[in-house]
């Protein structure tokens, strides 16, 4: 082989080896999401049937010229009840998994989840206050997401401020400890308020366990802009998170402004998570299990973990919701119970079969 041909071959090999350019895993994740979404549209007390649903979906696409055979009531079930629920589940699940992966990257801590910095306790307190004070009053329902969003954001701001003053901004451990402190404090207040108003205990409890059951297009429209903006910014940081895995100091010598990067990633992950939590309550486990399953299968590069967490988390939560509304039908199981009950054994299998865990 001539030297030029050898160099060309080496160049090609290097081009192929650029990280984050592996289309197959992403295609599989998208297929998983599509199957989950289809299950979400098909499964329910009224059997709409695969053929009619497919025809109805096709009839809404331009240029196909397909007529729908669904009745008006069936069409309303499909488009006003099931479809928004599937979309909301996808948005919330994708957001929680993406935010969890981002937190894990930015704190270099495998146990970090989107609720790490006090967002869950803050949102829980906000929702509890809205539920108990507005008990029975008109308009309370609209107030809960707002109160949860504000509480969650306030929790993270408090944790960040505390963690920042406690250290010179160099240690992630102090930030995590600040999150623990803020969480304990806000949870104490939340429990106190809850005990004072035992009449609304059931409502508070079911909010905290997480739910997608009130979903309509209105909820989707509330969450989508936050999730969209947050997902965009976080995905743009996927390579920088790989650089941060070398440690703060080395990332700095490679030209990264570590403190600012951490602040931006935490801020956008928080805003997206707060919006998701405001609508659907505290759905646990998604933010930990989905990124780790992807990491164990495909390696530690955030260039794969972030986009796949978004898509995989969406598919996972839509599927969990299908299970939540079928196992005890007509009653619904809180979706947080499903994510943990089915997620934990699945994760145990992934953990056992993977070669290493770091």
């Amino acid at each position, binding site marked *: 082989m001539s030297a030029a041909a050898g160099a060309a071959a*080496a*160049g090609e*090999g*290097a*081009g192929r*080896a*650029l*990280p*984050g350019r592996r289309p197959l895993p992403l295609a599989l994740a998208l297929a998983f999401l599509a199957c989950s979404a289809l299950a979400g549209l098909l499964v329910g007390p009224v059997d709409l049937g695969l053929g009619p649903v497919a025809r109805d979906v096709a009839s809404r696409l331009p240029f196909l010229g397909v007529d729908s055979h669904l009745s008006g009531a069936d069409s309303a079930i499909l488009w006003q009840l099931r479809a928004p629920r599937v979309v909301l589940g996808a948005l919330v699940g994708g957001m929680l998994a993406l935010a969890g992966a981002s937190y894990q990257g930015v704190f270099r801590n495998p146990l970090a989840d989107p609720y790490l910095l006090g967002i869950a306790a803050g949102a829980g307190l906000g929702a509890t206050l809205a539920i108990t004070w507005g008990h029975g009053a008109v308009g309370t329902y609209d107030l809960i997401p707002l109160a949860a969003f504000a509480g969650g954001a306030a929790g993270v701001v408090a944790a960040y401020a505390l963690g920042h003053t406690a250290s010179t901004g160099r240690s992630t451990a102090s930030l995590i400890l600040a999150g623990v402190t803020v969480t304990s404090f806000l949870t104490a207040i939340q429990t106190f308020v809850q005990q004072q108003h035992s009449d609304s205990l059931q409502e508070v409890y079911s909010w905290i366990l997480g739910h997608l059951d009130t979903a309509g297009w209105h909820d989707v429209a509330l969450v989508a802009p936050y999730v969209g903006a947050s997902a965009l910014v976080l995905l*743009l*940081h996927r*390579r*920088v998170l*790989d*650089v941060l*895995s*070398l*440690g703060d*100091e*080395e*990332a*700095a*010598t*490679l*030209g*990264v*402004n570590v403190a600012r990067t951490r602040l931006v990633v935490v801020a956008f992950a928080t805003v997206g998570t707060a919006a998701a939590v405001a609508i659907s309550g505290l759905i646990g486990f998604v933010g930990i299990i989905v990124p780790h399953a992807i990491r164990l299968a495909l*390696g*530690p*590069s955030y*260039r794969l973990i972030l986009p796949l967490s978004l898509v995989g988390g969406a598919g996972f939560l839509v599927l969990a919701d299908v299970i939540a509304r079928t196992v005890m039908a007509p009653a619904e199981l809180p979706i947080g119970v499903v994510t943990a009950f089915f997620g934990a054994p699945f994760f145990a299998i992934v953990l056992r079969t993977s070669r*290493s865990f*770091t």
Partner: protein
Amino acid sequence: MTAISLRDACVSLGGRRVVDRATLVVEAGEWVTLIGPNGAGKSTLLRAIAGLLPFGGSIELDGAPVRRLKRREVARRLAFVPQSPLLPPDLTVREYVLLGRTPHIGQLGAESARDAAAAARALGRLELDALAARPLRTLSGGERQRAVLARALAQEAPLLLLDEPTTALDVGRQQQALELVAELRAGSALTVLSAMHELTLALQYADRIVLLSEGRIVAAGAPEEVATEELISTHYRADVRVLADGEGLVAVVPARRARPG
């Protein structure tokens, strides 16, 4: 041309002055090695030059004040190899080396074919091609050292800062690591500033030696000028003999003082 220029550089850590009015000029293409006892301020000085610590006085890279350079501009001028780099265990060698291209990639961008080619060159020069797809955790100590150097080399900065590049290596590996740096210098106009513990090796590889003691530069010059029994004994608080074989080899050996009786 001047690669690094320090004038009265001072660094304080936790209220203690660790580097005290250091003045030093490193010319482009030189290999200068900082020696000195533990806590003399060698690593601290390197980190200040890399822009990682606030400092007093002036530090310039290629005539530009470090304080006014953006992080990315510093990163394009110098590559820093810390004493114990964090190696993400499951990252492959190629992925790791590609991270060295960060200063040349937009904050939110991705590697181009040019970056891949630069990484491939660095892998080639350090003979890591066969290991490129291996996760870092499977490498031996010497291979890790080469991977770290390849990452620094992929940065394509004219200045290389090495903090204790031979720590935790056996004598053969120490020699190989320094020989590698010497080869890299020969192939390009690389300026090297290193901090080292191992005196005899330091003397053999550096063009100039700078002796730091309690934060101050107490001697600087050609290896044989700095490596005197008097200077080393005083500042290391050690009893040493400096042996020369007359062919340019200078060795600093600890010598137990004869005890009466």
